[in-house]
């Protein structure tokens, strides 16, 4: 959770700094963080992407309120809205004031409501998956980089093996047995067990990239004089890790988180689409996509709604990551889009 909080902090920092930057026009007394935030605010695309991402986050957090406010129930079956063949009555999947984005074929459940709840699920998977694999990756990366020797070799080889695995096949193959195993261990049945399984397996395969990045950074940072200097002032390992190394790793970590989070969201959709993830009536973008493919001739609009939501979210995160990288890693020397 530590990491998730920091991501939120970043946003808070930004608001605080905006007040500060106004009265100090030169860069005197600004930390590398503040300078980075300043550069970030100048990149327009990054800021727009940040608002897009924030919008999704707010929708996810306040999903129950929004659904009540808009009077769209994601689970209620509306037989009035579908005809005898189960297809929505009226054009564009029966879009109307009652159902702004239409209804689901076959059941008549409200698409907007399901989309809003699906945002929640996607972001939970994305956030928790990223936080878990980032935490594991950062810890192992620091240990490998600091200890070197056989510890480093061991961690790196385990990582190689994890990457070499055909992970998607494994995830699909193990889905049912592992979910049942988890349930027999006392994890609540159904979606909780599924969620636990998916998150666990995402972490097992997902930590490697982060660990490699951090390891490389630590290897280069530890040769920098300030780490050596801190040691020469009598600093212990904790001080080195938390005071010297981590502050220098944060920009890289945050950029990486922003880049990998949409991957997890898309993966959840993929798994649900393939029928490995959650099952209806759970509201998930992947389930909606899988469902809509079956009706795409009769109800094309349905296909584009979850697809569009997913596309915009992934695009938002990627542009945010680009903006952050331009701001915090100016040496990467990329032209602004």
């Amino acid at each position, binding site marked *: 959770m530590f990491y998730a909080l920091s991501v939120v902090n970043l946003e808070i920092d930004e608001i605080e700094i905006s007040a500060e930057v106004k009265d100090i026009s030169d860069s005197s007394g600004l*930390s590398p963080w503040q300078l980075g935030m300043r550069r970030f605010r100048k990149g327009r695309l990054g800021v727009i992407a940040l608002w897009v991402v924030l919008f999704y986050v707010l929708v996810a957090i306040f999903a129950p309120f929004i659904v009540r406010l808009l009077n769209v129930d994601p689970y209620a079956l509306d037989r009035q809205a579908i005809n005898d063949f189960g297809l929505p009555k009226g054009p564009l999947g029966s879009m109307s004031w009652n159902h702004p984005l239409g209804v689901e074929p076959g059941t008549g459940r409200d698409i907007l409501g399901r989309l809003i709840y699906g945002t929640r699920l996607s972001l939970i998977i994305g956030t928790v998956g990223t936080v878990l694999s980032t935490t594991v990756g950062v810890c192992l990366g620091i240990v490998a980089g600091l200890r070197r020797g056989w510890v480093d070799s061991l961690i790196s080889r385990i990582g190689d093996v994890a990457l070499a695995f055909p992970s998607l096949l494994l995830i699909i193959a193990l889905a049912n047995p592992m979910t049942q195993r988890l349930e027999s261990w006392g994890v609540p049945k159904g979606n909780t067990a599924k969620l636990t399984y998916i998150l666990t397996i995402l972490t097992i395969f997902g930590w490697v990239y982060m660990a490699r990045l951090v390891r490389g950074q630590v290897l280069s940072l530890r040769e920098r004089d*300030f780490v050596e*200097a801190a040691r020469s002032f009598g600093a212990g390992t904790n001080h080195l890790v938390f005071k010297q190394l981590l*502050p220098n790793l944060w920009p890289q970590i945050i950029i990486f988180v922003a880049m990998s989070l949409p991957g997890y969201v898309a993966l959840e959709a993929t798994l649900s689409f393939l029928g490995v993830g959650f099952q209806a009536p759970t509201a998930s973008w992947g389930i909606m996509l899988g469902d809509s493919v079956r009706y795409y001739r009769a109800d094309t609009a349905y296909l584009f709604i979850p697809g569009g939501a997913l596309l915009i979210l992934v695009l938002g995160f990627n542009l945010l990551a680009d903006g952050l990288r331009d701001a915090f890693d100016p040496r990467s020397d990329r032209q602004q889009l």
Partner: protein
Amino acid sequence: MNTPLLSVRDLHVNFGTSEGDVQAVRGVSFDIDRGETLAIVGESGSGKSVTASAIMRLNFGADIRVSGSALFEGKDILSMGEEEVRKMRGSDVAMIFQDPLTALNPFYTVGNQISEAYTIHHPGTSKKELRALALDAIEKVGIPEPVKRIKQYPHEFSGGMRQRIVIAMALINQPKLLIADEPTTALDVTVQAQILELIGVMQEENGTAVILITHDLGVVAEVTERVLVMYAGRLVEKASVIDAFASPTHPYTRGLLNSVKSLDSDRHSRLEPIPGIPPSLIDLPTGCPFHSRCRYAASLNGRCSTEVPELKAVGNSWSACHLPVDLLAAPIKESL
């Protein structure tokens, strides 16, 4: 007070690499008294910095073997436990690094870093006290407007100013020994003199002993009392600064002095470089490490390439050379 502050005996440092063992330091011994200034001179790879980091026990990694002893106030640093070493670093022995541009963490204000160096050894100091200490330290090293500067980040300082901050950090716990590893190499010539002067002033104020590691003979002449000359991991000459410059004994020291130009040297005279390159530390020559570049080696019938010369007294200096004492003691312009 007759025992020296630091007494290094037979120090060896080996690095294991994939190409073989690098014998960076081979049997170095020296003493330093309280308040004294000692210079270690030598070209790159002569083992001077490795000697310093061995005294600080800063050598990372499992592939490094250190042997010998380094008695600091009677306690052997090389056989201390990790925790004991940690307590010693910074409070008893502090270090200044070569490149002030990288010696400070870019993410903290300089005030924060100075007070951090203090809190490591004095946990629980109040914020107010720390601020006062940092202000005081920054002022002492001659940085103007300390109240404003203390809140700034390293990137807002020039190289010389950063080195002043590093010095302030190193001295905040009033160490008894300060190891300055090429403290002026990365700085402009005009700033070099200021930094050396500052180290001198701080040393006088606190009674700190200083080991100055440098390849710059000008720096040595300016600030130190005694000189150790290192070559390929060995001490080749130990002398007072006056002796080392006026009557260098070892052929290598003479070569070093001939290869720099001083203001009073004849402007038409040519600089005399030492021929050849230093030996590889992995595949060291037998005998005297300098013999392949030494123009006198041929006169000793192969003794130089078979037998390792020990330090022997030559007048007031100590020199590790097989040449007879009277030849070594001869004035620089003559005979040799």
